[in-house]
């Protein structure tokens, strides 16, 4: 089977400082990969390199495109990469305000990706938007309200709807539950788990929270100082960590 995403030797430096170094892994269709590690370990840097928001200094990010099969998105022309970014890829930011247009209604936020790929029928766009609000458990009556009037959990769910409306195959998430109350987190996690399962999504989730990976991730990578120190099936890594750092992390001695 062809991996959906094949990452080889991704390295990103900030000057002399290492963001992430020599990261390689394959992600197969329908798989969810979790990335954990302490603050500053390079999780967001890696995710940004994979999603094309940062250009890595070395390495390949080979995505199995619908049209042409496996292509290195690092060297692909920018218009193509940006097109992937609004069709087959989705990116859920930790802070909803980074992933939403706060001055635009909920319907407009969800509809933007549809319009970006050529939807030109207002009624259809609006129907899809309300349909998606419903799927992320936001009252369809809020379709014309701005996200500024939404709670943190609702904003995050709106961000997810806005990203999934075009039926992407790969979702990048950076701390999607960070900064939310515990009960709100739980609801969001349930929702995410349902969507991942129903849509057969592949996903890469960066998080501090081991409960998040336990619930969502099939596989897990543990990062420290920019390097992957351990990788494997989530349950294996969490139940029987091999690397000393992973052991610390799992035993919660490290309050990350």
């Amino acid at each position, binding site marked *: 089977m062809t991996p959906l995403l094949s990452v080889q030797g991704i390295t990103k430096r900030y000057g002399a400082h290492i963001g992430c170094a020599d990261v390689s892994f394959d992600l197969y269709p329908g798989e969810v990969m979790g990335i954990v590690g302490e603050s500053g370990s390079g999780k967001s840097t890696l995710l940004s390199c994979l999603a094309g928001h940062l250009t890595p200094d070395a390495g390949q990010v080979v995505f199995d495109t619908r049209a042409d099969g496996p292509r290195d998105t690092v060297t692909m022309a920018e218009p193509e990469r940006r097109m992937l970014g609004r069709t087959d890829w989705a990116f859920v930011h930790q802070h909803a305000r980074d992933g939403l*247009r706060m001055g635009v*209604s909920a319907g407009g936020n969800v509809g*933007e*990706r549809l*319009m*970006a790929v050529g939807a030109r*029928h*207002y009624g259809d766009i*609006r129907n899809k938007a309300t349909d998606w609000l419903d799927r992320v458990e936001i009252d369809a009556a809020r379709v014309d309200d701005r996200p500024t009037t939404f709670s943190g959990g609702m904003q995050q769910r709106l961000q997810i709807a806005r990203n999934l409306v075009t039926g992407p195959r790969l979702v990048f998430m950076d701390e999607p539950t960070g900064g939310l109350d515990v009960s709100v987190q739980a609801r969001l996690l349930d929702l995410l788990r349902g969507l991942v399962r129903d849509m057969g999504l592949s996903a890469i989730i960066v998080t501090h929270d081991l409960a998040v990976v336990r619930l969502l991730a099939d596989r897990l990578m543990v990062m420290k100082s920019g390097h992957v120190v351990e990788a494997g099936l989530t349950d294996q890594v969490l139940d029987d960590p091999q690397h000393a750092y992973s052991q610390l992390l799992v035993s919660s001695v490290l309050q990350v």
Partner: protein
Amino acid sequence: MTDYNFAYLDEQTKRMIRRAILKGLAIPGYQVPFASREMPMPYGWGTGGIQVSAAVLTPEDRFKVIDQGADDTTNAVSIRTFFERTAGVKTTTATAEATVIQTRHRIPEAPLTEGQILVYQVPIPEPLRFLEPRESETRKMHSLEEYGLMHVKLYEDISRHGHIATSYAYPVKVEGRYVMDPSPIPKFDNPKLGDMAAIQLFGAGREQRIYALPPYTQVVSLDFEDHPFDPSRADHPCGLCGAEDSYLDEVIVDDAGGRMFVCSDTDYCSARQAAGHTGKDAA
């Protein structure tokens, strides 16, 4: 004897502006950056349009200036006087006689012809600015033809008002490529932008941008399939000349709050009256 070079700007500056104009004509709808000069009037007065006019005027030209369709507003009069003084060009209020017409907020009603140049004063050249304030990002959107955001703006209009409420500076797509802000003309004028025989030049002074439409360019107003573009016109004839095809201003005519609708294009209206047409409010 004048203290200034012809049309105020020095030749080198005019050459620089002409290069920007030529580039704009070569890439219809594309915003060309240019080094805007200080002009002896404030930005709100159309310094972008004035610099473009200065760069295209020749001593043989006949110059007309309109502001919201009228030749006699303070703004129009002072720009006309400025070029009478600095370029010594003849001026006119008759659309058909003018070779260069500088305008703010209108396109004349009389169809323009080959050989004429229409110069627009532009306050904000970037049609995507409303939703994306980052210049680096809007530039990328233009270069990659990522215009979904333009429709988000129209979507928002419909969701809030039930119809596309944008009635000025209504965005257009030029030759199937660049999305362009036609300056704050009423959308009523949008259909005239396309396939026009005259050259159309757009100058934004504060924002330092020039863009252009060469003659007979395809210009399409953006819309949705189920909310098509509607140029809409007030449902009255002109009170003075009876025209039913012109853009109207509502004016208050007496202290009792009496109103009437009259052509915003004063030259068009007076020419029709001179030809014997009258409206119901004509004295």
